[in-house]
């Protein structure tokens, strides 16, 4: 029944928007309202627009986006938790003319994979890292992440993140920007059409850097929401993101072409 | 023919490289060889030893507790290895720095003043070659030509100019052994 209705509705003359061929037809496993879907789509659009379909190898992490390879219609590897930058390093070293990117969440990149992240960047591997920061472990059920804000409640910080016993949220993006191997570092978001456009531009620059064999990692943080983990509606979670996440994780470019941006 | 040798002394005396040259010499005359060092922290200034086996047959165990010949270059090694020489075997040592001399009567005991002779030749680094010469005098299991070939094989090319010096050190060792018993 659903299919028949869809067939009737989806006619060439009704078409105002189509998804890139680089996204599969598989239904996304992400919660409605989650930023991952948008981040996936704009990444794949950039790869298509730059003509990189046949040359790109992506690496999925462990976390909500562990199944990214089900949705991204390109060759992909699924890496052990936190190890995507090591996996990407090897692929790029073995196939220097291919385009290699990792797609990682905050737990994967900034907790268990801190060493791999730091050292891949420090070696200046010519890869793209897309880092989705929603301040929580979504897949395992809303536990505290390295990027969870102070006072923020999660299933392992049920009374709020306490600085004295749980430490501070980690600004890994600022941290890695200090490394000479970080060529392009930016923090973006996908909660409004305007931020989506900016993020896509940043992702395009990241891939362009790799195509141009510019020395170093291009690192795009995307501050995103987790409405189910934060226990909010999608609209509430975007509002919460604006009021709480963005003041601590301010948007904007940190480093372009290996140079810090003075604000 | 199978010759099972232990060379033992301080790290830095050239114990391991002496063993390596000996092993390479064996290869040069188509023999089977093995070279098994003690390894680890003791390499840094402590005692070092290496077991070298040269044989007409395939070498079985590279690890041994009894030897045909022991080449002993410090007191600790004397204490450790004097009793591991097979009856009828050889114990060659440099008396310099040895406070308790070997006492066994069922083995042949030979000394070589390796450090003294090397100092006389003006280069303490050839100490191990003097000792090697002494060993070859008592156990001529490899001939000198093959030792020189082995030496060239185990030295990087840039040190090949030192081969004549090493050769004269070996000869010096051959000429200066003292049979104790």
């Amino acid at each position, binding site marked *: 029944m659903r299919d028949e209705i869809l067939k009737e509705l989806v006619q060439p003359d009704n078409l105002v928007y189509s998804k890139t061929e680089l996204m599969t037809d598989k239904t996304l496993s992400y919660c409605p309202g989650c930023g991952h879907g948008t981040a996936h789509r704009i990444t794949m659009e950039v790869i298509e627009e730059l003509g990189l379909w046949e040359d790109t190898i992506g690496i999925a992490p462990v976390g909500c986006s562990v199944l990214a390879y089900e949705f991204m219609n390109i060759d992909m590897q699924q890496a052990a938790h936190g190890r995507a930058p090591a996996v990407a390093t090897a692929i790029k*070293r073995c196939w220097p003319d291919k385009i290699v990117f990792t797609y990682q969440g905050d737990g994967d990149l900034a907790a268990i994979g801190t*060493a*791999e992240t730091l050292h891949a960047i420090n070696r200046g591997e010519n890869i793209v890292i897309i880092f989705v920061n929603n301040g929580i472990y979504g897949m395992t059920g809303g536990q505290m992440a390295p990027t969870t804000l102070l006072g923020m409640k999660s299933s392992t910080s049920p009374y709020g993140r306490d600085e004295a016993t749980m430490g501070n949220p980690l600004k890994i993006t600022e941290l890695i920007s200090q490394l000479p191997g970080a060529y392009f570092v930016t923090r973006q978001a996908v909660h409004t059409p305007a931020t989506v456009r900016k993020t896509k531009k940043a992702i395009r620059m990241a891939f362009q850097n790799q195509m141009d064999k510019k020395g170093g990692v291009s690192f795009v943080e995307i501050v995103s929401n987790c409405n189910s983990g934060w226990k909010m509606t999608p609209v509430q979670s975007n509002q919460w993101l604006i009021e709480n996440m963005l003041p601590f994780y301010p948007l904007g470019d940190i480093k372009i072409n290996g140079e810090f941006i003075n604000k | 023919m199978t010759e099972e040798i232990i060379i033992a002394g301080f790290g830095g005396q050239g114990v391991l490289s002496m063993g390596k040259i000996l092993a390479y010499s064996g290869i040069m005359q188509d023999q089977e060889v093995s070279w098994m060092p003690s390894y680890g922290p003791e390499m840094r200034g402590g005692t070092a030893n290496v077991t070298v086996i040269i044989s007409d047959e395939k070498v079985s165990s590279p690890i041994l507790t009894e030897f045909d010949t022991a080449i002993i270059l410090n007191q600790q090694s004397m204490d450790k290895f004097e009793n591991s020489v097979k009856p009828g075997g050889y114990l060659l040592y440099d008396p310099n720095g040895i406070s308790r001399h070997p006492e066994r009567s069922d083995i042949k005991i030979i000394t070589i003043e390796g450090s003294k002779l090397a100092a006389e030749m003006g280069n303490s680094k050839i100490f191990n070659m003097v000792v090697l010469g002494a060993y070859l005098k008592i156990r001529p299991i490899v001939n000198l030509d093959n030792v020189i070939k082995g030496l060239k094989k185990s030295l990087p090319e840039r040190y090949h100019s030192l081969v004549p010096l090493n050769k004269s050190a070996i000869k010096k060792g051959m000429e200066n052994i003292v049979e104790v018993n």
Partner: protein
Amino acid sequence: MGDLKLMKGNEAIAEAAIRAGVDAYFGYPITPQSEIIEYLMAEKPHERTGMVVLQAESEVAAINMVYGAAGTGKKAMTSSSSPGISLKMEGISYLAGAELPAVIVNVVRGGPGLGTIQPSQADYFQATKGGGHGDYRMIVLAPASVQEMSDFVSLAFDLAFKYNNPVMILSDGVIGQMMEKVDLKDSVARWTDEEVKENSPWATVGKTKDRERNIITSLDLDPSHQEKHNEKLLLKYADITKNETRIEKIDCDDAEYLFVAYGSSARIAQKAIQLARAKGIKVGLLRPITLYPYPSEMVAKMADQVKGILAVEMSAGQMVEDVRLAVEGKVKVEHYGRVGGIIHSPQEVLEALEKKIIGG
């Protein structure tokens, strides 16, 4: 005859890797195997063959680099020693789950924990029974000479690509650190990119429009799929057991007693055989060359011939369990081995045979 050299076991592995056309080595220093990466770095393999050699930030990173490279169809390897291999176990389980060909060298040292840097064979269980999580097996080769350290590199890659499975070369501090004569094989060229794609059509090298995308993963959230995947792996392991079991027999024809020993213990046992036979004791040696698959049938056959079997290994008794499983109580099976980095001597092995098997 190729190129005759006096080399350490560790150096022989490194040189053999360059000559075998290996594409990438990723490692992290640890005694007693650091000569492998040192030798590779000194040899500039990127100039000799184009091989990638990278010192990783950890053993964990190194094995995951191997995963990444292997997932693109390249011949990739790593090496470490016991504590480092423990760190690699997660990655090895992923390699096995994703069915990737790769070679892992373990130059075993004494444990548990940081243990010692001296030789040991106490990683047998870890290598042959799993080590990482899940139902998987590695093919495990046990070299007993520097020559085999060299020869087993290309053999390991042949097996890895034949079965799309990780292969471990299980060595120890004796074989890694000793020098022996090696007859080095002639070099073979690395596969071209086209050959890589042809040999490994599953590899992630960029999705062309004429095929579905290639995915390297060990994940399937649907347990019915995961069960099928496990069953497929089991069939593969049965195939490996049927086709790839390897042993060497020494002095077995007239043997009344038998040593079962691998790696350096097999060498020591050979000397013990000489000492025993000089005393009129007819003892032979069965040396498993593959530890997985284990040569159970061959051991069982020898149990019909001999009066007793001594498993000799530098461990508290690990492989002896497989000997007992194979022998099924037909004859007495005992274990002898020094532990914690102490190497047993041929005399000690002979004494153990006399006490535990002949006299016992």
